[in-house]
């Protein structure tokens, strides 16, 4: 074993201990404590994911780490604003925010999924169309949450036709049948 790998393992262990400590802080009763704990947890998990990619060679960990690094501070800032009393917070706002965050998670997942399969895989076009469906649903959910139900409904009806057209054209045009 070389010295770099040993130090990476030491960093991993210390990050795991720090993550557990952050979770303990986050379970305290006040919101400020929760914010401190969650922001510590997010940067710890992001660094941990980069380390996992470095040690075990799992490629897509870095994408998730990028999302965590960007989204973690943004979320912390938003909740800190709420804590200061700048933003109104009622039930409908919370529901809409949950829908938007759910949609962004789905869109990020499909962005990862559309890139990670190799081009020489069997029938990879269909896999990519399936994964595009996830992003479609995420965008429709976001459109409904942003009070544009007409656009959302129109795309809900129209998107299957587009997906079907791609698949049909590929099946009869490019794929070789025996």
């Amino acid at each position, binding site marked *: 074993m070389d010295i770099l790998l040993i130090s990476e393992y030491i960093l991993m262990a210390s990050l795991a201990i720090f993550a557990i400590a952050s979770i303990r802080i986050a379970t305290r009763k006040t919101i400020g404590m929760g914010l401190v704990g969650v922001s510590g947890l997010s940067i710890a998990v992001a660094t941990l994911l980069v380390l996992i990619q470095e040690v075990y060679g799992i490629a897509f960990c870095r994408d998730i780490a990028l999302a965590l690094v960007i989204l973690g501070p943004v979320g912390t800032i938003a909740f800190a604003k709420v804590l200061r009393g700048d933003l109104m917070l009622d039930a409908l706002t919370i529901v809409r925010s949950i829908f938007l965050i759910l949609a962004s998670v*789905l869109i990020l*997942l*499909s962005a*990862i*999924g559309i890139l*990670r*399969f190799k081009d020489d895989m*069997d*029938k*990879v076009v*269909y*896999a990519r*169309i*399936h*994964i595009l*469906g*996830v992003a*479609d*649903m995420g965008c429709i959910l976001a459109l409904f949450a942003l009070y544009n139900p007409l656009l959302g409904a129109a795309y*809900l*009806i129209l*998107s*299957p*036709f587009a*997906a*079907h057209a791609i*698949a*049909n054209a590929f*099946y009869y045009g490019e794929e070789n049948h025996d």
Partner: protein
Amino acid sequence: MFITRIFYGIAYFVVLIYEIIKAELDVALRTINGDVKPEIMEIETVLVRPISQTILANSITLTPGTLSIDLDSEKRILKVATIVKRDKDAVIPFEPYIKGMLE
């Protein structure tokens, strides 16, 4: 009966939304763990009218993880691409509701 058709229509939308959410989570999980192996299968449907066959094909494509490629209206055969190998009933769970709604 007209009333039962309306009932079947509402039930169809509920089942469709439930299936979309279920399939959505399934496909999102598959993009993470990489368990993807696309297959093409042929499904024989009991629906006769072209409009109900079109609605069935549209619902299949709307559900993530299944995708209708071709529809033979006279032989009543759908070509469906699925994200992994699935059996026939798991692909078209809303067929009886469309049958009750339009036929």
